[in-house]
């Protein structure tokens, strides 16, 4: 089993205050992993570290055979300007950036793939709608369609189901499952243990430091979750008192 990603004593943070500490873990190629943990555990920070938006304070992320272009990232509150006069097709088609680049032409074949992506997230017929008129769920579907077109080998999702209706969530979980069967590596930050247990075979439990990593049923034990919460509460103070001893 080769690893798609390897965290090597990774410490990430803002303004020199660490939010993720000395994380050491391997994410297997083709795995479907949930990143789970209490608030402030550094889950989102970890994804930013993988995309390169945040430089490590210490350690590094090793990519195996992946390159930057193989990574697609869906941020939590994506800072898309919803009032911007962009239609759904415009937004979704930009997932083809790696093919059409800043100057290229969107040909018939690509247009068909955009339509297919829209269909697989259930947005057929809404192509010309301005993005400002979409509901939260429809917007998330559109962003998933864009991810589909990015055709990335590593997909990073940050809380993809917050404020989303149940039907949308079920549809989007289908999309995630299809990525998994296609052998793509998926890494998703989630806060709902039920969703993780039902749909994610692997879990990485994080509380600034690694609590546990492995098959979900072994990781998401009551004991582990309790320990994670304790570690995070201990970390709520100044960061220098945080660490193994505090837990």
């Amino acid at each position, binding site marked *: 089993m080769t690893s798609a990603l390897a965290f090597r004593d990774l410490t990430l943070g803002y303004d020199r205050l660490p939010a993720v500490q000395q994380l050491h873990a391997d994410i297997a190629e083709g795995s479907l992993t949930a990143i789970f943990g209490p608030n402030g555990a550094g889950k989102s920070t970890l994804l930013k570290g993988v995309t390169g938006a945040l430089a490590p304070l210490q350690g590094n992320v090793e990519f195996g055979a992946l390159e930057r272009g193989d990574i697609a990232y869906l941020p939590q509150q994506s800072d898309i300007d919803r009032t911007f006069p*962009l*239609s759904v*097709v*415009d937004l979704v*088609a*930009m997932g083809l950036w790696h093919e*059409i680049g*800043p*100057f*290229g*032409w*969107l040909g018939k074949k690509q247009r068909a793939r955009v339509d297919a992506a829209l269909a697989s997230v259930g947005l057929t017929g809404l192509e*010309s709608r301005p993005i400002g008129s979409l509901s939260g769920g429809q917007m998330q579907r559109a962003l998933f369609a864009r991810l589909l077109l990015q055709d990335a080998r590593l997909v990073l999702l940050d809380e993809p189901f917050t404020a989303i209706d149940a039907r949308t969530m079920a549809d989007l979980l289908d999309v995630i499952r299809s990525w998994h069967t296609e052998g793509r590596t998926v890494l998703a930050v989630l806060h709902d243990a039920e969703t993780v247990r039902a749909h994610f075979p692997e879990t990485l439990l994080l509380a600034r430091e690694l609590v546990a990593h492995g098959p979900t049923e072994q990781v998401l034990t009551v004991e582990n979750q309790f320990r994670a919460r304790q570690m995070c509460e201990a970390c709520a103070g100044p960061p220098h008192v945080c660490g193994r001893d505090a837990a």
Partner: protein
Amino acid sequence: MSAEKTLRLLLVGAGVRLGAALIIVAALWAAFFWATSTPGAL
């Protein structure tokens, strides 16, 4: 609505946009020569 649909500027290639821009620029310079060369009292 149909007029809005045809203006899908984001999805055409840069070549098309550049071509359109060149036509506009040519028209501008044509206007320049018209404005500066035709006689008229100052």
